[in-house]
């Protein structure tokens, strides 16, 4: 047999090989999804605790002392513990939800199927990538259980605070070491994943499937994996240098004469900006690592429900690519107030404004394609529309923040919090929801409940706006971020807004229980899904069963004859022709 036979594995026999240490990309994808699911619940509960504290600072949250007796004496969190929860919320959400779910989970499950392969080329690396990522998550969670709790340094772990050890405050000892170890391990996992994603896309495509015939979701994962390869390869050594400063007494990041808590630190000559450069060289691409897979998923879902391709397939792909390339050139816009040379700020501001061009092109293509389309309204398409809405609303504030003169004013305020939560956090979450509703029938062979899905969408959509739009107002009013209480005179009148946000967050969070219920109920009791419930064209709907067999296509590989989105044509099944259907198309679209 040819080389694919060398790389594909046999059908697993034992329970352990089938469900735990599985080489099957579909099982690994579901494992990633499960990890993200647990992580998002933890992250959401942490955000609730913070929101309750911000709205009612002295309110005793029942049982909080069980999480940390020192951090929450009398069930009221200390200022330090607030920062510790904030750090963990952000780290969990950015790494273990926004990277893990749209990229690693859906990408693992569907990229090989959409390219017509029976698996990834390196299944053992793939399995390792999940278990390494899980280890990273457990290392991070372990920091809740060390003596002074998790680190309080924020998900960016700015030095010198994060590099000086326990003198830096609660969690700055073992908490930071666990944090940096966790993230370094996470990077290894994502590098192994990226290796598989790139080689699968380049080398495992089935016959007839040229690059331009890949669905947009595959393009999203492919471009993201290239970003991941370069970004995580930088964060990992940065974390190692941080650990060395922390435990080995080196001075990469801590400057001379640093005095923390009245103690002169023994380090000399380190560069605090060096950490920020290394971190944000990863950090900004990370934003796109979170959002580009969502862009791909949403495009894929919308096209299926519009029953016509996007205005320009290629322009979308080029725009994804432009976002990826530019994401490395703009990272300094996170550092406008860092003390960096102001000339550098201008230099980073310019590409930051440039990157709005591919973003705008993507949005305009979506809107232009939607214009006049008879969109099929279902949970997946609603969440896709919600993604676009959130991406626009959150993206517009990016125009303001891209300019150093405005950013100096807004940087440390809730304006930034509102911006990144909408454009990166909620938008990516909506992409995950859209993907879940869309692909659930393929993953489990059952339909999710549409009524519950729509209720889930509307509460989440309205709720997300209620939470994150007022953040912009708070920021413009000068409400600083990262504070655990607002005791300054001018911020007192803003507390009712915070309380409104807290209530909205609690309600929106509770509404996610509808989704959780729908997920588990449909998994076991949902209506049995037809082979191609959305009348879609791409290869994941050509597998012989739902869920697909272990080798995806039942022992033979499909041959592709068409571009990915042949909708609005006269096919034998209706208004679409599957990619692997050899039938000719009379009214062919000249699109991609």
């Amino acid at each position: 047999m040819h080389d694919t036979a060398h790389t594909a594995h046999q059908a697993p026999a034992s329970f352990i090989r089938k469900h735990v240490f599985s080489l099957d990309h579909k099982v690994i994808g579901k494992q990633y999804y499960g990890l993200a699911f647990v992580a998002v619940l933890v992250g959401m509960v942490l955000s609730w605790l913070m929101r309750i504290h911000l709205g009612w600072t002295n309110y005793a949250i029942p049982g909080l002392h069980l999480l940390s007796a020192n951090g929450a004496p009398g069930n009221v969190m200390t200022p330090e513990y607030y920062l510790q929860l904030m750090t963990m919320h952000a780290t969990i959400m950015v790494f273990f939800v926004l990277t893990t779910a749209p990229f690693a989970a859906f990408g693992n499950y569907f990229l090989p199927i959409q390219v017509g392969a029976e698996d990834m080329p390196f299944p053992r690396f793939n399995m390792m990538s999940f278990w390494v990522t899980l280890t990273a998550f457990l290392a991070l969670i372990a920091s809740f259980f060390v003596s002074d709790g998790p680190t309080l340094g924020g998900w960016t772990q700015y030095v010198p605070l994060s590099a000086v050890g326990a003198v830096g405050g609660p969690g700055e000892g073992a908490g930071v070491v666990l944090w940096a170890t966790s993230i370094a391990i996470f990077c290894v996992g994502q590098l192994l994943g990226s290796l598989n994603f790139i080689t699968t896309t380049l080398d495992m495509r089935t016959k007839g499937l040229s690059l331009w015939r890949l669905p947009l979701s595959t393009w999203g994962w492919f471009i993201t994996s290239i970003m991941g390869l370069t970004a995580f390869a930088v964060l990992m050594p940065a974390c190692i240098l941080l650990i060395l400063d922390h435990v080995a007494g080196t001075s990469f990041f801590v400057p001379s004469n640093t005095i923390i808590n009245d103690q002169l630190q023994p380090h000399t000559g380190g560069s605090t900006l060096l950490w920020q450069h290394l971190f944000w060289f990863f950090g900004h691409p990370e934003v796109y690592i979170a959002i580009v897979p969502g862009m791909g998923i949403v495009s894929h879902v919308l096209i299926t429900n519009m029953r016509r391709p996007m205005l320009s397939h290629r322009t979308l792909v080029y725009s994804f690519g432009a976002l990826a390339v530019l994401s490395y050139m703009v990272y300094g816009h996170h550092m406008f107030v860092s003390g960096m040379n102001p000339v550098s700020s201008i230099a980073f501001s310019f590409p930051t404004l440039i990157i709005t061009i591919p973003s705008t092109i993507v949005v305009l293509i979506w809107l232009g394609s939607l214009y006049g389309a008879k969109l099929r309204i279902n949970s997946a398409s609603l969440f896709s529309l919600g993604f676009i809405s959130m991406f626009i609303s959150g993206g517009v504030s990016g125009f303001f923040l891209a300019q150093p003169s405005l950013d100096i004013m807004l940087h440390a305020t809730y304006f930034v919090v509102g911006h990144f939560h909408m454009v990166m956090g909620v938008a990516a979450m909506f992409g995950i929801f859209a993907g879940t509703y869309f692909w659930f029938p393929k993953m489990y062979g059952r339909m999710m409940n549409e009524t519950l899905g729509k209720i889930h969408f509307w509460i989440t959509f309205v709720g997300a706006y209620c939470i994150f739009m007022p953040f912009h107002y708070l920021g413009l009013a000068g409400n600083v971020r990262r504070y655990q209480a607002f005791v300054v005179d001018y911020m007192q009148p803003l507390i009712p807004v915070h309380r409104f946000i807290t209530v909205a967050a609690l309600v929106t969070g509770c509404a996610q229980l509808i989704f959780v219920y729908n997920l588990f109920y449909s998994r076991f009791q949902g209506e049995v899904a037809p082979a191609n419930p959305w009348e879609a064209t791409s290869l994941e709907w050509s597998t012989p069963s739902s869920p697909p067999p272990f080798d995806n296509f039942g022992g033979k590989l499909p041959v592709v004859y068409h571009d990915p989105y042949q909708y609005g044509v006269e096919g034998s099944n209706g208004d679409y022709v599957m990619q692997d259907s050899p039938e000719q198309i009379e009214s062919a679209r000249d699109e991609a």
Partner: protein
Amino acid sequence: MASTIHERPKLERRPSGNGGPRGMVPAGGLPRTLQKYAPPPASTGIWVILASIGMTFAALTSALVVRKGGAPDWHHFTLPSILYLNTLILLASSVTLEFARKRVAAFMAARRIGLANPVHWLYSTLGLGLAFVAGQYIAWRQLSAQGLYLATNPSSSFFYVFTAAHAFHLIGGVGGMVRVITKLNNASLRRTTLDAASRYWHFMDVLWVYLLLLLWMKL
């Protein structure tokens, strides 16, 4: 681009790709033909891995440049002279590996007519690689004998970080070489495994020469 084709896709190699390399041969083609025309993912994968490693060392290089640029506390020191011997050893390992590669192809193709197993060239490569790592260890011992430890000075910190990171990656290459030798002895070695391991090994070689120049200039 026209979206629809009306006949089966052509299967010859085209610059823009047509369904990936394995789409270029008929599905029922002979394995030999397939091996000839279908570079397996390991060929691409090794470049992906090397790109990632290159990025890691680029990040560390930029860290060195930035850290040195603003540091009044930077103390220069002379590199241990054994590093130059180590460099020669590593370069020699690449040469023996190339000898091995040439002979392995002939050996695997014509095993039955009694060509000598070229595994001794691979053992030489492996031995030289391990000798390099041992030499690096001696270099660390020499530095520590001078009182230069990891945290003594930023220059020594970078020396240890760079050399340790490189040695760590080289040990990965040693693992790959062991795998190649095992497979060769089992007569189950694939050309791509050898090629991927060789590329990795040579990359470690080139990377070390780069690091030596960097450390020589900057420390």
